[in-house]
């Protein structure tokens, strides 16, 4: 289990480098990845879908909070930590079974793929749609504030469209 959590952190760092995330955010992303995978492993004996759901929801929540705190887009703290939960093996198995003409196994693995990715989706959507509220609140406040402010001047245009006579 400890190996698994450490591996999740390493995977997160590796994907942060592949996705070109700034160095200063990387420890937080790695922490997020380890946290999400730990929750998944803890709930695994109960129910695998509950584990994935709780893991991805925890990653999404922690990612959004880190984004507010570090003043950076949430994607930076969300995408790489979620990778360890992705059911890459199941979809490979389902197509392998399809090509070796083993239809009942194909259906089984396809079902697993859909259920697992659906659980991830549900976890993210729960949290992200709650944070849409925060996003809209900030946008409205910024708009009101900007409406009462003098705009930054720009020089008159070189190719400004001339009004029709």
């Amino acid at each position, binding site marked *: 289990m400890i190996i698994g959590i450490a591996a999740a952190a390493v*995977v997160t760092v*590796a994907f942060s480098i592949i996705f070109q995330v700034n160095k200063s955010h990387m420890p937080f992303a790695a922490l997020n990845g380890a946290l999400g995978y730990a929750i998944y492993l803890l709930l695994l004996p109960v129910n695998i879908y509950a584990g994935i759901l709780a893991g991805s929801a925890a990653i999404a929540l922690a990612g959004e909070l880190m984004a507010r705190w570090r003043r*950076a887009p949430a994607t930076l703290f969300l995408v790489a930590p979620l990778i360890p939960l992705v059911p890459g093996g199941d979809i490979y198995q389902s197509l392998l079974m399809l090509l070796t003409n083993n239809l009942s196994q194909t259906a089984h693995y396809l079902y697993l793929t859909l259920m697992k990715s659906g659980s991830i989706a549900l976890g993210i959507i729960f949290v992200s749609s709650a944070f849409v509220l925060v996003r809209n609140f900030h946008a409205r406040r910024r708009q009101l504030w900007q409406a009462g402010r003098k705009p930054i001047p720009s020089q008159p245009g070189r190719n400004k469209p001339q009004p029709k006579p």
Partner: protein
Amino acid sequence: MDGKRSDMDGDRILEAASWAGKIMLENGAETYRVEQTIEYIARAYGMVRCDCSATPTMIITSLLDPDGCTYSVIRRIKNRTTHLERVEQVNRLSRTLVKERWSLDKTLTELEKIEQTVNYRLAIQIPAAALGTAAFVMMFGGSWQDAAGGLLSGALLYALTAGMRKLGFGDLFIYLSGGAFAAFTGWLLPMLGWTQQSAILTISTLMLLVPGMIFTNALRDVAGGDLVSGTSRLLEASFIAASLALGAAFVRAVLLL
């Protein structure tokens, strides 16, 4: 219109705002963030109305200045990569414009700088990919030997896909051949006796190409109500996953015969 000259340079404001949006969309930002950034930049320079619609393949922007002139542009997005550092920098730029009064020239040169930013070169990304593959092997319960094999296959796979991308191959073809390559190394290394677990090695190598970024962005788009972007990104993610698995499973099935 009464021929009154506006003291605003609408074309260049439009250029700056839509360019910022283009950089973000090309490098992996969510739809709402693209639209919001364009609106913030346009309003910071005094536009009174900003309507913007972004999908994964294009951005339509239309601005109205205080004198009633309308400026609009369509930016077509052809190639999408993942470079989150650029997204963060454009985001920071739009935040800065709220606090500080940068001239348009400064904003435009800054955008040009951001477009050229490279955070990690390929020489750093390939070892990272190798390490990630090895970590996946350990996560799936492989031995240290298998992890060493993962280091090799992960590095090779990442180098292969990066090279193909540079040559300009189509996306789905890259994923198909990446999957095929993963299955091939997953078969070859155990055959040579270097590793034991063929399936674990293949799956760990495949995980390197899984469309996690597109999938997450698709879900965040759906959650935010951007249905067109969300559904098209979901479709893209499932096509990528299917072609990846198909390439791997095809090679595996042929080798099993």
